[in-house]
């Protein structure tokens, strides 16, 4: 969140933004998100195998943003009030940061089950940036 990201840079990782594509390490089998750089488990720099996760996981950390969000989230804050951000451990093992949606963020706790959904993250320069958020599972 927060840092300006050009559209071409955004576009480079659409598979990650839209479907949380993970990199699976050929050496140890661990999953890394985003699918670039070194393995989060064993630091191997061997080429990842890209895999698509189910999109379900568990909240491992979270916080509620009640004010002072970066300007691109100002409209969201006006319209929806406070919103949650969390780190989610996917069932495949990778940890992914993301915003929470369709919930009162103050009721979401560590260990809650969530699923990935694609929402409008923000709009900038007339361009809607879509991406994954996490929604508590019924």
């Amino acid at each position, binding site marked *: 969140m927060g840092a300006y990201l050009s559209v071409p840079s955004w576009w480079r990782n659409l598979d990650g933004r839209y479907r949380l594509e993970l990199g699976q390490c050929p050496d140890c089998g661990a999953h890394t998100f985003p699918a670039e750089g070194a393995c989060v488990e064993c630091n191997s720099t061997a080429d990842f195998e890209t895999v698509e996760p189910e999109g379900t996981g568990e909240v491992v950390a979270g916080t509620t943003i009640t004010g002072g969000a970066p300007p691109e989230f100002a409209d969201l804050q006006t*319209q*929806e009030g406070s919103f949650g951000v969390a780190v989610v451990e996917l069932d495949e093992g990778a940890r992914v940061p993301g915003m929470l949606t*369709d919930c009162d963020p103050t009721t979401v706790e560590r260990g809650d089950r969530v699923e990935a959904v694609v929402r*409008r993250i923000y709009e900038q320069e007339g361009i809607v940036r879509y991406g994954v958020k996490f929604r508590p599972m019924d």
Partner: protein
Amino acid sequence: MGVTDAIESAGAYTPRYRIDADAFAEAWGTFDAPGVQRKAVPGADEDAVTMAVEAAKTALDGSAHDREGLAGLAFASTTPPVDEGDVAATVAEILGLDNTVETAAFTQSTGAGGSAIRWGTEVPDGPTLVVAADAPLGDPDDALDHAAGAGAVAFLLAEDGPVEIRETATYTEEFPGTRFRERGADAVDSYDATAYERDAYGTVVAGAVDALDEAPPAIAPTAPNGKRPYRAARRLDGDADVYETAGDLGDTGAAGPLFGLAAAWADGEDDVALVAFGDGASAVAVRVVGTLDASWDRETVDVSYAEYARKRGHVVETGGDD
């Protein structure tokens, strides 16, 4: 008919939020959407694209085809996020469809879902997702906004499936000044002559249904509110049952007739004419035989009028409770 004239699977999606007609009337002073008891309200981070994706994923989950095998994707909405730009490509990319997929966006008409189905059966050379998603918006004091709901329905068209698309028919006649949206505007508008609008709707819906070879026992027309479809049905020969979801979900625009069809299936109907009507005006009637399941059950949360107005981006002072 084309190569993919069966519906193999379906998916439907509605947002989490609801507002009751009573809550709306209490805060705003009046509620001018006939026959709407309750309606769906999209979250601020939802739009036609995100709702389309939800419905499409459910339809894909119910299909024997995997996403790489899809030949086409049709997207229908009166509220695409941009006036120009292939919004269907965004939906295809989010779904992870193959780059060889053929896409088309149908917009500018609440009848767009019917045109998308027609395209889906005729044009792509293989299984095709047809998804209608909408969240109409009007001025806060306008009946069109009071009726405005939100939701999406997707059908996966294939060579074989439990529902057969048996026949289509169309009717077109100009009725200027019925529902329209000016270039560059967000809010839908109309000249506001109720009898004239009803006549336009009734003439064109009945015109398309009457043009079918066989009178259907049930119809699922575009539903701008929860009353107009029933009034129009009286103009039809025979005694067709009417299905609409505007009473529960509000006006779901281009998705409306597809929701109506899903409601007809849920009620056990297996011979239904979906009638996609668009003001202006034209209609496509699609007679389908068979049934599928397309439920949009989910946990919902009621919002106040103030919350509703904020989520929809209306700048209004209500003085109501929050």
